[in-house]
């Protein structure tokens, strides 16, 4: 499995939690941290489990997630 990584724009996140449900590897969870708009933002609870599938980003209604995947050696 390739390793993935997410960059979550905390100020765009509205804490709807759709990404948490979409993730097949239970990587994401609410952080308990509030952003400037007062939303409980999502963070990577288990970053080691991320494979960079991008399901969270496809689901995010606020386009707050960027997805990176490990380069596969040529």
């Amino acid at each position, binding site marked *: 499995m390739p390793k993935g990584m997410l960059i979550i724009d905390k100020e765009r996140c509205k804490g709807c939690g*759709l990404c948490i449900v979409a993730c097949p590897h239970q990587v994401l969870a609410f952080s308990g941290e509030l952003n400037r708009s007062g939303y409980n933002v999502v963070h990577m609870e288990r*970053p080691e489990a991320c494979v960079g599938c991008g399901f969270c980003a496809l*689901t995010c*209604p606020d*386009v707050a997630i960027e997805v*990176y995947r490990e380069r596969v050696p040529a």
Partner: protein
Amino acid sequence: MPVSTEKMVKVFGRPASLTEARFTYCPGCHHGILTRIIAQIIDELGIVERTVGIAPVGCAVFAYLWYRCDAIQASHGRASAVATGVKRANPNLIVFAYQGDGDFASIGTAESIHAANRGENITVIFVNNQVYGMTGGEMAPTSLVGQKTTTTPDGRDPALFGYPIRFSEMIAQLDAPVYVTRQALYDTKRIVDATKAINKAFTNQLEGKGYSLVEVLATCPTNWRMKPTEANKHVAEVVTKVFPLGDLIDRG
């Protein structure tokens, strides 16, 4: 978290056709997903310089703020008519109308049906969330039987208010439209399917084939009084029984 992007390749980011403006939608609202999908397709087809979006009245009234393409904000319900005018005036433009159910299937019924019946070479995105979102959760023509809204607090009673209107099926009866489909966004598979359908609707226009309509079943967690995840489940289990998913006509 320490982040090293050197060994990493970006596989998903914000589409270039989206501006940096934050969406004004409520948390968990599917409008945002759909807006991102359309921007991604504009990117993929490389048409941002000649695309004109027609914004409706409703929650998506600010649609012109999200895209880097040109846009017009139409009078309530008249987005398909405005799209007709833009496309006829300059057929080289790629014109899409983005309309909700109160806009497209209620006040704009005449404009919507006749644009389809004329087979205008435009792309219409019809967002069906069975409620008037922006104005405060009133009953829409698409509201389900028994659905509680602010104007039907005891649930929609068909004896008083009629039945939910299947607008896409009506348009699919016409001879002119090229592509009419109903999609949803309640899980990843549906999002991928909806992306393909919208891509097809834009490609049809690029190829000069004619009128394409993509109805998208969306959620309104705020006015449905549900959590975003519950609203997704509601679409999957209840709404799709009344509004079945799939292509209604595909003459492309």
